[in-house]
């Protein structure tokens, strides 16, 4: 156990700190949150790519920095930007999911065409996976793509497409071989969101915000060479993509920050003249949650080390989503309870148009969004299936007998 950094990492840390100190004025206030990057963001992103603080491991021939993969370096960079409150470069599904997928299974032509503009933030991607009838059961995707000459013709509907209203391109999971078993009939297409026949409708959630969209396809023509791997390989490619999604660690520091924000709330909230922080039944609930957060924080440090050492954390990684989302929901529940009736004034601004929510509204939005996180990205029920089957080696449920 050695929680200090080695010389090399300390040097990187110093370098990042110096960079931030010099350039922090150029940092945009928020990056890529629910809207298309503006000029300031693009300039910042380009600077980060140059310095290797974004796209660090992308080969230079595709416009990246060409660094060796090193999770510790990535963690140090992320931590310094986070501590300084400086934008850490665009966090988009294109960069985090599609680019590594193309590096793994894309053709050379595909890599050359898309990686450079994607990591520079010039091309924004959205993810076309979930459908109304394919949520937990993602392989049940019904959006059809039929080959017509040198184009696929796409018809169907996607849902939960977060950046569809401003994205330039989409990576799409669709059914091209309906006669094959469900996992073998899928393909993975890349298509421009400007193609005729695409309709994007904002999808309002319980938070009052339209963080997501529905996307409808009517005879949308996609050049046949915009397929990743071959026909019927869609499930394989989608799982590669999802692997990279899952590799993004939840951020325990964010949760610890929440604990302290709630503590401040409890110091500032009085009932009948007594501060909530001085009421042990309230304080104990906060301290107990702090304990849960601490466990997750050290667990993440352990995972980071395992990743750096090339050890597969197995079960240790599988539990992260379930643990983090359930804990997050309990944390925001406490904040909402501390506000009590005074926090019920609720005036959320729409993501699409922007504007800042007041603090109580933010906590309520977070609380409901946390429930969304429990449900989305593989619900808690699906996570428990994964943990028990892959982590604990328990058998899959038997297939039902035909009736």
């Amino acid at each position, binding site marked *: 156990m050695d929680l200090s950094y080695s010389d090399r990492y300390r040097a990187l840390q110093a370098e990042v700190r110096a960079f931030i100190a010099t350039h922090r004025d150029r940092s945009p206030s928020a990056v890529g949150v629910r809207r298309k990057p503006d000029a300031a963001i693009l300039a910042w992103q380009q600077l980060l790519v140059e310095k290797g603080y974004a796209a660090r491991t992308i080969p230079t021939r595709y416009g990246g920095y060409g660094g060796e993969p090193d999770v510790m370096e990535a963690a140090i960079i992320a931590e310094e930007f986070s501590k300084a409150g400086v934008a850490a470069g665009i966090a988009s599904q294109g960069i985090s999911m599609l680019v590594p997928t193309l590096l793994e299974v894309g053709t050379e032509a595909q890599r050359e065409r898309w990686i450079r503009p994607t990591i520079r933030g010039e091309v924004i991607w959205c993810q076309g996976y*979930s459908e109304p*009838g394919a*949520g*937990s*059961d993602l392989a*049940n995707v019904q959006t059809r793509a039929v080959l017509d000459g040198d184009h696929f013709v796409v018809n169907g509907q996607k*849902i*939960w497409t977060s950046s569809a209203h401003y994205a330039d391109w989409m990576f799409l999971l669709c059914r091209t071989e309906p006669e094959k078993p469900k996992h073998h009939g899928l393909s993975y297409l890349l298509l421009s969101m400007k193609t005729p026949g695409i309709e994007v409708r904002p*999808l*309002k*959630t*319980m938070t009052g915000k339209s963080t997501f969209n529905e996307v409808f396809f009517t005879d949308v023509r996609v050049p046949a060479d915009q397929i990743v791997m071959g026909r019927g390989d869609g499930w394989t490619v989608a799982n590669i993509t999802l692997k990279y999604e899952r590799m993004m660690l939840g951020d325990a520091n964010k949760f610890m920050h929440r604990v302290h924000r709630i503590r401040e709330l409890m110091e500032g*909230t009085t*009932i*009948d003249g007594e501060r909530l922080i001085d*009421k042990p*039944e*309230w304080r104990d609930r906060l301290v107990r949650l702090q304990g849960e957060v601490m466990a997750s924080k050290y667990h993440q440090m352990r995972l980071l080390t395992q990743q750096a050492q090339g050890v597969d954390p197995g079960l240790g990684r599988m539990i992260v989503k379930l643990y983090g989302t359930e804990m997050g*929901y309990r944390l925001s*529940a406490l904040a*909402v*309870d501390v*506000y*009590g*009736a*005074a*926090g*019920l*004034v*609720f*005036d959320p601004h729409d993501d699409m148009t922007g504007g800042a929510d007041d603090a109580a509204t933010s906590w*309520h939005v977070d609380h*409901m969004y946390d*429930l*969304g996180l*429990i*449900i*989305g990205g593989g*619900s*808690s*029920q699906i996570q*428990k299936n994964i943990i028990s089957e892959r982590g604990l080696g328990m058998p899959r449920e038997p297939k*039902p007998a035909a009736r």
Partner: protein
Amino acid sequence: MEFALTDEQRMLDESLRGYLARELPLETLKALAREGQGVSEKHWRELAELGVAGLMVPAEHGGAGLGVLDAAVAAEALGYAGAPVAFAGPAVMAPLAVSLMASAAQQAEWLPRMAAGEMRVAVAFAGGTGQTGRADVTLDGTTLSGAIDGVLDAAGATHVLTILPDGRAALAEVRGSGVTGEVKPTLDRTRPLSQVTFDKAPVAVLDASNDAAAAARRVRDAGRVMLAADTLGAAQAMLDKAVAYAKERVQFGRVIASFQAIKHMSAEMATELEPCRAMVWYAAHAADAIPEDAHVAACHAKAHVAEVGRFVQTKATEVHGGMGFTELMGLELWYKRISLDRHMLGSPERCRHEAAVAQGWVAG
């Protein structure tokens, strides 16, 4: 011994549920919530005609002369329907307060108008409930000054009845001089809260009670029982919707209601929720007929049903998956209803503290 609703109460329940099912289809409710101010004048008027406004008004003043238990039956039905109408204030706490605290002349003047639904009285507590937010008013002779946040049922109200910590009460006209009622955008779009400000507002003082503090406590307890009943109804609605959805939604080639995980979540919800009904009934009955139990029962009902409500609002949404997280099915209306109930008139922690104090387990 008969621990059950009477035939009359069952009829009240059925007629209310029948009306609400007919006159408040989901699309109507969603549209009302979307408009933001939420409360529906039409439904208030029609419910008043059905006798809901006068439920607790004594018969000699033109009401139905019913009790807190009858009101709780109504509150559960309204919660089940997600009804965007005022209830706990004008139909329960206000007539109870007037009956307990007002002079005969005041009663004769106000109660018939309340029963008709024409005088709509919100009840604001200037402290003593444990509710967070400003609650700071002073009564100087017959004028009231100060401000109270988070007042329930004040949108569309004609009057605000302010109950002071010492039990005195003061009735002000919303459109009277020195009174400002600002309806706030509220988490539950169907029951917006208001911020009421008094600036030397002329008020009618209610001071006919022998024990003002006890009367005020009875009013507050009745309000808490209504909030518990409302949560009970709303949580039952969410459970019913979750079970129905699970029976239709197919994933992995099966309705999800056939997965043990979904079945067990549903069973847990039902197991927690079902005893809440008897608890609410008892707390309401105690308010009517068992004074020595009434306060503790009200505190416990408010606290316990709120905790169960949180469990059900969470798990029922989970059963709905992504659909539960959207506005498409309207499920979130009930979710937010349960959240609002939890925080009004004292958190579960606060209500449990009062229950402990009332039982002498700790000094007050």
